[in-house]
């Protein structure tokens, strides 16, 4: 068990997967490689209907008042974004940088801990070479999981990947509809070559890898597309009337997908959490407690001894974890990065 003289109260890792924001363009499936027009946000006023139950007796029992109340303009202002009537294909473009150096914390205040961790990480690199993780990351590029809601119902999806750094040129093209987003069981030669590049960067054989990714989703003419939604920490104390109820992300007037959201999709590779088989949630994003935001649930609890901190404490001090998948998970959290000082674990 953990010896108490090698505790790092300050411990942090930089992320090794660095996506840019995604930029959204509209085009047609036939013309997709030749031309694309930036997609802009539009502000809409939506006339909502009164859907909440009217409880005031005075209104409920007076038909005239009730009518007036129901017809009251329940105007909501929202951002929206859509293809134009002559476009049927969404193009999403981003770059992805994959860095080496996971064996070095960006901050660590305990020498003994640092040494035993680096040893453990180097062992992992030697024996596993990041192959399993790299394959899963590559799969999440090929299956276009990063399109999120824009992936749903698309007739055709193509993902083009181009290597931007280094001397030799290399590129890949994937038909994303051929790859499942529920599992990572596929065997595909071109995924393997992409995975090799990712593994080489993560394990330090290459300094880093820089990819440009262009995804095309044929979703139909004039269809809505879904940029990221902004989380406004509203402090304006103005009245809520007339406030915009949905604010979407744009960069220099181009509709966009947050880098964090793309990153979250790329690291959705965890099929090793305790309830994986029963839960039917599918792969979840790599997170220290296996938390899934839209479910408000954490799948890896300290109680089940399946959380990152429990596993990492043992791994970093040289213990080998019985289940190899636990080791994959630990390394994937380190690739994600974060602040993991020991006093923070509770």
């Amino acid at each position, binding site marked *: 068990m953990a010896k108490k003289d090698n505790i790092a*109260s*300050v411990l942090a890792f*930089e992320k090794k997967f*660095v996506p*840019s*924001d995604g930029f959204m363009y509209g085009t047609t499936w036939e013309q997709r490689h030749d031309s694309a027009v930036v997609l802009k946000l539009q502000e809409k006023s939506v006339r909502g209907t009164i859907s909440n139950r009217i409880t005031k007796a005075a209104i409920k029992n007076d038909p005239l008042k009730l009518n007036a109340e129901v017809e009251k303009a329940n105007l909501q202002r929202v951002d929206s974004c859509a293809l134009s009537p002559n476009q049927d294909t969404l193009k999403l473009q981003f*770059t992805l*940088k994959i*860095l*080496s*150096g996971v064996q070095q914390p960006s*901050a*660590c*205040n305990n020498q003994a801990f640092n040494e035993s961790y680096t040893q453990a990480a180097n062992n992992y690199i030697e024996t596993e070479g990041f192959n399993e993780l790299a394959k899963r990351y590559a799969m999440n590029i090929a299956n276009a999981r990063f399109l999120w809601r824009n992936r749903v119902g698309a007739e055709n999806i193509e993902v083009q990947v181009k290597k931007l*750094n280094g001397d030799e040129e290399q590129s890949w093209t994937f038909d994303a509809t051929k790859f499942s987003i529920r599992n990572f069981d596929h065997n595909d030669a071109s995924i393997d070559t992409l995975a090799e590049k990712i593994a080489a960067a993560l394990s330090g054989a290459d*300094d*880093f890898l*820089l990819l440009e990714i262009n995804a095309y989703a044929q979703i139909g003419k004039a269809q809505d597309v879904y940029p990221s939604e*902004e*989380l*406004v*920490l*509203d*402090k*304006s*104390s*103005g*009245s809520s009337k*007339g*406030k*915009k109820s949905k*604010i979407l992300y744009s*960069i*220099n007037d181009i509709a966009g997908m*947050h*880098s*964090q959201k793309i990153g979250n999709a790329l690291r959705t590779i965890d099929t090793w959490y305790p309830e994986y088989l029963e839960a039917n949630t599918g792969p979840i994003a790599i*997170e*220290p*407690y296996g*938390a*899934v*935001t839209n*479910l*408000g*649930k*954490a799948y890896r*609890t*300290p109680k089940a001894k399946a*959380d990152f901190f429990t596993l990492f404490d043992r791994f970093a001090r040289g213990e080998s974890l019985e289940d190899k998948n636990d080791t994959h998970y630990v390394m994937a959290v380190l690739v994600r990065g974060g602040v993991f*000082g020991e*006093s923070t674990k509770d």
Partner: protein
Amino acid sequence: MKKILLIPQIEILNANALSSPYTIGFPAMTAWLGATHALERQLREMDYPNLRFKSMAVVCHHINLQTYKGAGDYVHSIIGTGNPLDKTGKRPSFIEEARCHLTVSLIMECEGLGFIDEDEFTDATVQLLRGKMKLAGGDILKTAQAKLQEIDDEAEHKALMRSLMPGHCLIERRDLMQQAMATGQDAIDALLDYLKVTHRSHVDEQEKITWHSERKEKGWIVPIATGFHGISELGQAKNQRDPETPHRFAESIITLGEFIMPYRVTDLDQMLWHYHTDLNTNLYLCQQNKQVNLSST
């Protein structure tokens, strides 16, 4: 003569825009000097053991601050990023983080390079920036090719300044704060006096009333974070990130600065900044090599 390393057009995503607890926007000077220092350390570990970046300048070409202001709002609100959930599946409490996306050019004054292959040096620099480093807490998406240049005469200086256009470089205007504080104003009033826009009415001979607005000083004057102020004794503290280095608590300090276009800079030292520590007053500063004379008096 100065030898400079120019790294043009660096695109940075999600840089820290909370430059101090009082300010939001362009990242703090300490962040730029800090990155310069980190780059120097990494290059020294490679093939350039005597390299020093004596001072540096930053030119901002474009900045996009992640805040939101609804119609009728008095203040902007910060646009957050979803923080991960804790072990109970709840959102933990957190301190709001403000971010910006920006494009900058950096200029570093080099010393101790010796006789080197300049292409190798600039390639190594760009490789470090793209592959290893962060800037002001943000991710580096792109950089143009770095260049080593000698700035010897006016023509070279002007060509360099022209290559930095369009953009704005940050100049310290601590002189304004000092003047105001010397008259007995406290630091907050001195600062706000230069930031506020005053509206006054004027009645002419025909009794016609006009309102006009003005600021105390011309130019694009802003508060800027330029360093730290030690607030406790030097010593050892539990949980410091490295037990070997003397530790103390400190706070960010701000003063006034001005954004000007580079073509106005007639001497490179007017835009370059360096570290300066004054342990008598417990000040850890970024300050300019030379003050620009921007006042007419």
